[in-house]
């Protein structure tokens, strides 16, 4: 039976350090982790320490990772602190650093040519559906609100995003200005307080 290292619920770099310490003393270990970052970090540790790496089991969020030493023990001494510094603890999945917010401030993407800008924004919004990590919020303002109105070529994409749990804020002042009051068919009408707050609280802002 391989040694079990239970790193569930622990934050980076704890799981990768525990795994490193255990594999230095054992030929084979199984590490239990519950986040993707730990999996990636341990995968890199395995490369560094010449270990076989495999995810052997998955129950919900919990992954069982098996590491098997293939090189000679102590052949590649690795410093714990160096490992911790190198592993991507800072590159957290959006949630830990604040939400990923997409700003649609125009119904075109980029400046220069509006026909092209129209094609690009349609491609961009459609691509948001497959983007990983998925945006947490989308804010539409200025002519960007037209994207959420009836007749928009990306209305179905925005509706799907909303269905998938993405919060879509549509600027009420802008809807009023363009007289689209009864035309907005994706997301919910919002105001500048919410829009400014959402932008201020974002981990990252994405603006096409």
């Amino acid at each position, binding site marked *: 039976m391989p040694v079990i290292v239970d790193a569930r619920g622990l934050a980076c770099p704890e799981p990768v350090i525990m795994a490193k310490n255990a594999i230095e003393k054992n030929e084979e270990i199984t590490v239990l982790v519950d986040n993707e970052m730990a999996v990636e970090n341990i995968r890199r540790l395995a490369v560094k320490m010449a270990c076989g790496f495999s995810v052997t089991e998955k129950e919900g969020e919990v992954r069982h990772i098996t590491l098997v030493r293939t090189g000679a023990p102590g052949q590649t001494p690795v410093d714990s602190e160096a490992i911790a510094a190198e592993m991507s603890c800072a590159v957290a999945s959006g949630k830990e650093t604040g939400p990923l917010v997409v700003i649609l401030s125009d119904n075109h993407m980029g400046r220069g040519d509006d*026909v*092209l800008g129209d*094609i690009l924004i*349609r*491609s961009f919004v*459609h*691509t948001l559906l497959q983007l990983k990590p998925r945006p947490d919020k989308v804010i539409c303002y200025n002519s960007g609100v037209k994207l959420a109105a009836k007749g928009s*070529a990306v209305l*179905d994409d925005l509706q799907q995003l909303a269905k998938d749990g993405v919060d879509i804020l549509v600027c009420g002042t802008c809807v009023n200005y363009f007289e689209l009051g009864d035309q907005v068919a994706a997301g919910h009408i919002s105001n500048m307080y919410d829009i400014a707050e959402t932008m201020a609280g974002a981990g990252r802002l994405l603006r096409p």
Partner: protein
Amino acid sequence: MEEQRYVVFLFPSVSYALKAEKILKAAGIAHKLIPVPRHISSDCGVCLRATEDKQQDLERELQGKVAWDKIVSL
């Protein structure tokens, strides 16, 4: 629920795709301009997607008006 099956029409350039879109819009045939899926290579970054059952309608409507490179099932 059965998953909707799609085909995409690939064109030699963006302007072909746009022209095709105009024709389909005028003819009232449902379609969607999307980025070319990653696994398909194409110089032109956009393509037209339609449900599988609309493929022949699209072909008929575009025949002789806009040339397409190929049709790929998704």
